[in-house]
């Protein structure tokens, strides 16, 4: 590739761009694949994503979700009550559980149509995020203090869940599976908690994905990650997303040999400001000149309702790169 790869986190925006409701997009693998491929062509990006939402894993285990046309679903009932033991859960079968098949179908279609001409990426929830789905975020966090062994058991289950779902995505054609773990962010749990409870489990997920044939591993945690970024390389992340809280220089200092993806502010894409987006994107690309190992992206998901001109401006920043 003769320029910096353009890998914006375009998920639900692909649906909006294709004139689909999010509800339909999230229930139909063919529609999702078509919308992703159209978005890639429209914005000349280098990746498509079979990311659905953060309710997929919980839904596959029986949690009810509330869907709307214009936004992501909400988990409206926890799989586990505050006092429930995660040992009663059984891993779901990705080929049939909830909407996991939607993701697998989208990956098969996208890989079949794109081959190796673009990155075809899958997505799983990391252990802390999946655990928060199962218990609800408040109960999951209180477990850390009230019942650490039960939290550990829930995290172990979530780790096995991420591995099983991720391996199914690789079998369906994903080049790589991005591990999204927003609940592992230092905005949610302290860095010490991350190192003790989450890093070893993320390491297991990333190793299993690599052993399962992933071209590379990718860890995506949004928010102020300065306190944990330095351990990403040790736990096996080949690519690391960094959010707007960190400068490019700081991210490079913390992860000198890891490919970095980031870090335009996602909410900046809402209101039309293409000149500013292009200027910021050009500055980012310039910051990595000479280092390499950079994917131009946003630090978090670009909102579904983002202004199209802003995303086009991001692509324009790479012209002449």
């Amino acid at each position: 590739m003769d320029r910096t790869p353009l890998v914006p986190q375009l998920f639900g925006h692909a649906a909006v761009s294709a004139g689909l409701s999010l509800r339909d997009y999230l229930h139909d693998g063919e529609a999702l694949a078509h919308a992703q491929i159209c978005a890639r062509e429209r914005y000349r990006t280098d990746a498509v994503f079979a990311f659905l939402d953060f309710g997929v894993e919980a839904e596959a285990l029986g949690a009810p979700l509330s869907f709307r046309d214009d936004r992501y679903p909400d988990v409206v009932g926890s799989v586990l009550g505050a006092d429930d033991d995660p040992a009663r859960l059984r891993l779901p079968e990705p080929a049939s559980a909830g909407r996991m098949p939607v993701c697998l179908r989208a990956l098969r279609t996208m890989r079949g149509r794109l081959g190796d001409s673009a990155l075809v990426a899958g997505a799983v929830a990391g252990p802390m995020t999946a655990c928060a789905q199962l218990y609800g975020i408040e109960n999951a966090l209180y477990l850390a203090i009230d019942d650490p062994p039960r939290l550990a058991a829930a995290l172990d289950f979530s780790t096995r869940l991420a591995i099983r779902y991720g391996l199914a995505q690789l079998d369906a054609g994903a080049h790589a599976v991005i591990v999204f773990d927003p609940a592992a962010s230092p905005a949610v749990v302290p860095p010490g908690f991350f190192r003790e409870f989450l890093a070893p489990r993320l390491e297991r997920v990333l190793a299993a994905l690599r052993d399962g044939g992933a071209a590379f591993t990718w860890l995506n945690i949004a928010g102020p990650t300065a306190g944990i970024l330095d351990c990403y390389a040790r736990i096996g992340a080949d690519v690391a997303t960094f959010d707007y809280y960190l400068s490019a220089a700081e991210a490079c200092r913390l992860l000198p040999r890891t490919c970095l993806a980031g870090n335009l502010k996602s909410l900046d894409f809402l209101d039309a400001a293409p000149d500013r987006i292009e200027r910021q994107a050009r500055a980012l690309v310039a910051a990595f000149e000479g280092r390499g190992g950079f994917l131009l992206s946003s630090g978090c998901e670009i909102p579904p309702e983002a202004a199209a001109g802003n995303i086009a401006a991001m692509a324009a920043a790479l012209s002449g790169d």
Partner: protein
Amino acid sequence: MDGPHTSGPSTGAAFQPLVDALLVGDHKLLAAVAQRLIEQGCSREQVVTDGLEHAMGLLDDKCTVESFNLLEIMLVGRAVSSVVRVLYPDGYAPTQGRATFVIATLEGDVHDLGKNIVRMVLAGKGFRVVDLGRDCPVDDLVGAAQREGAVAVLVSGLISPVVSQVRKLRPALRACGLAHVPVVAGGAALKQLRPEALDVDYVAENAFDGAHYLERHVSGAPAA
């Protein structure tokens, strides 16, 4: 708040166990300590001002933008709530508390953890907070502000679709004659935008930052 202080223990040392329990987030111990202080003759106001508010001040100093995290704050919040339940089983009455705020997560957003934390932090600082819950219509929030005599309206938002709802708040307040009531926004999505982009008075980086703004507002100090 209560009337004049009663004759219970009034030294800082008497409240140290309460402060210590709050700082480690031990809600059960904290509730027991608060109960004991009341039984020893402390007024509810003393427990709030010399205990809770003092501890919250110490926590506030510890919580920088870099070190603020939900887990630790939630533990403290749960502890504060346990004390407030001991002191005011029915919540602060309209005549109690340093001032009244109304708070909500607006329609379209059901993520209310951030809102709950703000509510608990403000309760720990002795304010009365009327919580309208999540997925709350703008008109309901404005109506509550009018009804409760709120001195500020607070909104928390985790996801981007709520931005359009926040932008409706100011015109709705103005239409009800509440143009003077400031709006404070916070949460992962909203804090990425500037106040003028949201048409609010202040965008808080976290719960303590928002509380600082509100303290200044209530005391009549100029905004920082």
